[in-house]
């Protein structure tokens, strides 16, 4: 049982980072990025190709992060511009449709040019014993990185001027303009950040299981579900929901089959959404 819970936590932390990127972009700009999973996959692929070119793992991973951030920036500068001109529900819908198109473009290209490729970072080292359970080194490192990321995000948003500025745009956009903050610039930064987070998802996930080029949509859908359960716009919600759903999934899988546990996860998510549409820790409306 402890083993499944720990596995669930490892999985949950990944869900959390996955959802954090999506929820940030929604919380700030009212935009849903359906190509999020593709950004993760591209970053993973960039890391893979860089490593194949001879670059050692850590710098290659950093290059992957840069790729993720760059892709986020490109999204902001191109297809999201028309989206920003709409407001409210029209904006969300248009963002869904346009980013879906972008997801097709990326997916189509990747699967054509690099079919069946996948990033698989094998972390060497003997299994570590945590709370009496033997955990693979990959899981431990992945979780460690994720926890560091959570810490960095927390520090960023709570204690830096920039983080406060970003939070202010989420809480009251007009108010933020009145104090000299440029919401569009903040949005751009958040999109870069979400791209970097997507890259982190790909890299850490690949330490546990391979992330291949076809994983884009499943990652996005998973992220979307965790995001909504945690509350759109809430980063703590994203991680909380991630952990809860991760543990549910993991515990269920060890007692029942994979498919059924996935269904349980999905149904649990659906129930949460229906009972509490604002999510566990929802911020926006």
């Amino acid at each position, binding site marked *: 049982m402890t083993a499944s819970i720990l596995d669930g936590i490892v999985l949950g932390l990944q869900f959390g980072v996955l959802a954090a990127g999506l929820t940030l972009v929604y919380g700030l700009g009212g935009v849903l990025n359906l190509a999020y999973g593709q950004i993760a996959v591209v970053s993973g692929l960039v890391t893979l190709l860089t490593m194949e070119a001879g670059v050692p793992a850590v710098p290659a991973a950093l290059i992957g992060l840069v790729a993720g951030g760059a892709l986020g920036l490109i999204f902001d500068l191109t297809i999201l511009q028309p989206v920003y001109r709409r407001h409210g529900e029209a904006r969300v819908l248009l963002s869904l*449709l346009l980013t879906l*198109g*972008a997801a*097709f473009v990326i997916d*189509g290209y990747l699967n*054509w040019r690099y079919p069946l490729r996948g990033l698989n970072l094998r972390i060497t080292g003997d299994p570590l014993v945590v709370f009496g359970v033997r955990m693979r080194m990959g899981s431990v490192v992945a979780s460690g990185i994720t926890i560091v990321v959570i810490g960095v995000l927390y520090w960023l948003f709570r204690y830096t001027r920039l983080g406060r500025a970003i939070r202010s745009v989420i809480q009251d956009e007009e108010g933020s303009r009145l104090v000299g903050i440029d919401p569009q610039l903040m949005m751009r930064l958040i999109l870069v950040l979400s791209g970097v987070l997507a890259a982190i998802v790909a890299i850490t996930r690949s330490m546990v299981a391979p992330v291949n080029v076809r994983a884009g949509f499943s990652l996005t859908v998973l992220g979307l579900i965790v995001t909504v359960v945690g509350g*759109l716009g809430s980063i703590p919600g994203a991680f909380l929901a991630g952990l809860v759903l991760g543990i549910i999934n993991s515990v269920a899988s060890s007692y029942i089959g994979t498919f059924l546990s996935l269904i349980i996860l*999905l149904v649990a998510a659906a129930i949460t*959404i229906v009972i509490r549409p604002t999510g566990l820790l929802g911020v926006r409306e």
Partner: protein
Amino acid sequence: MSGRAVAAGTSLVAGAETRVSRSLPRLFGSIAAVGAVLAAVPLWVGDSRVRMGVAILGLAFACYAIGFNLIFGSTGQLFLCVGALAGVGGYGTALLADRVGVPVVAALVLAALGAALVGGLLSWVAVRRSLGVIFAGIITLIFALSFENLVLGASTITGGDSGIQVSAGSGTFLRERTTAYYVMLGLVLLCLVVHGLLRRSRVGWAFRALRDDEVAAELAGVDVARYRVYAALVGSAMLGLAGGTYALIAGRVSPTTYGFAQVDVVVIVMLAFGGIGTLFGPVLGATVFTILDELLIELGQLRLLAYGVLVIVLFLWIRRGLIPTLAGLVRRKPGSPPGTAPDGEPG
């Protein structure tokens, strides 16, 4: 504001009701015309088994698109479970007919009803909890994924990954390519008739009213909740019926027959081509897409890239869908600005 709303609502009623009786012959006429054109297809591709298969699938997708159009285009409910609802129809028909021994037609009807119930339930839940578009989308997406996983997981019943053969309907006219095509075409025309009649009825103006301005519609007396569920019930029934019929024709169902990536995504692209909210848009979109997909088959995965570009371009610049806009360009007087869609579709 309320005065304006009531005025808007009542003018919609007045306008719609005068249109009802006048245009019925025109409706049937245009549907018959479309039917005639599509009926000619086997004359070109009848000898190629593969091409006939593609054509039949194209017609099935036309039905799916009409169903989705009815639910999303008419009442703004983002149902991302088109494939799954068709799957309820498909797997339902196959299992009821083969395993339970229900007569084929009854199995089909029951399965379609099942799909209708599921769709109606999803809509009812979304409406009761006042879930916005995204949430409704996510709930239906969750249903779609659950269905897919259920089918994959319960492999003893559903054949899991590889699916099952559908013995019901084998040896009948359903398995004969040409007759199967006409059966599917008949279904398309039926869906068009149903949708067309709905649009011209009281139900139709209620749909338009609530899509254009929900608050105004409520004030004008439209029970938004009820009409949303109606649309979902009818649309889902169409999806289930189409899915079931296709299962009987194809002789085999598997998770990929009704998967999200295979069905929902394609339907959205089709509606991008043909226009959301119009009657013939889905058929147009399905036709264009099916032909395009076949022409580009050499490109393999790159097709997805092409569709992605098209979706972006189409939803960015041509809000009503490619064909209606081109038609509008032809009809519009030179010098007047391109109007926005009168039936304000979302997005």
